[in-house]
């Protein structure tokens, strides 16, 4: 018990001497200007960091868009009823227009089999 108390006393004395020996720290007049310079430099770094973090995603999005563009140019329009009409002659369109639904379907079938 005495040993513990003595140890405690030693540590207390040691830290008291250390406290007295350290004294006060006086900041230099350059502290604030240097701090703001550091904040400014970190600010621009953080902007670049954000950009760097987003750049892979942006690159991926650009690639996907390019792939879609290429695909849309590569594959022709789907052969639909409308496209068949667009490729028909003026006379064919007039004929189609004057037909009723049933005749139009038959005509379209014949056209497709031709």
């Amino acid at each position, binding site marked *: 018990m005495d040993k513990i108390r003595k140890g405690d006393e030693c540590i207390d004395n040691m830290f*008291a001497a250390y406290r007295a*020996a350290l004294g006060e720290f006086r900041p230099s007049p350059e502290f604030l200007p240097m701090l703001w310079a550091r904040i400014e430099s970190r600010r621009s770094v953080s902007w670049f960091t954000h950009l760097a973090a987003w750049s892979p995603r942006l690159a991926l999005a650009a690639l996907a868009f390019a792939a879609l563009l290429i695909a849309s140019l590569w594959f022709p329009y789907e052969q639909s009823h409308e496209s068949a009409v667009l490729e028909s002659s003026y006379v064919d369109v007039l004929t189609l227009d004057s037909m009723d639904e049933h005749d139009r379907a038959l005509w379209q079938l014949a056209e497709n089999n031709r």
Partner: protein
Amino acid sequence: MLVEPETIEFAQSGDDSAFNTIVLAYRKRILGTVYRMIGRGEDVEDVGQEVFVRLYFSLKQLRTPQVFEPWLYRLTINACYDYLRKKRRMIDVRMADLSEEQVAAADIALSGKKALDEKKKESVRELLDILLDRVSKEDRVLLTLKEVQGLSLKELSGIYEVNTNALKVRLFRARKRVFEAYNEMAQKNEV
């Protein structure tokens, strides 16, 4: 608190002049804490600036201005940890390697004498620096905050977010390790 809660709120909303007010109010306290924790005057401003830079970029995360001070202390402790981790000197100083002045300083420090001349003060600083380098950075920071900075257990409890009983145990162990480090050095020197 050294500033009004409104000042902290203004700074949180991006008001640089409010942030400047905070820096001016806390500069002395933070630099003093850093100085006591790292023990090297030449790096104090560098670490202190790092604390305020971190404060600037993380201030928006603070939930309420009421917890500002413990939070600022935590930032300070973390900046000191980072510094000590980077700059920790791999010293294996034995008492035999110490100068006669440092050995005398150990006696003075242990005797509890308060009035020391500059040379002896320097020796006490070096001795404690060596002793604190021999324990973990966690022990060093905790002991510095309690024994040198003079923070109460309640204040420490707010900073570390643990109850005071757990802190008392940590402090007891940290003090014991410093004393053991001193004894080890003293035995090797046959003091």
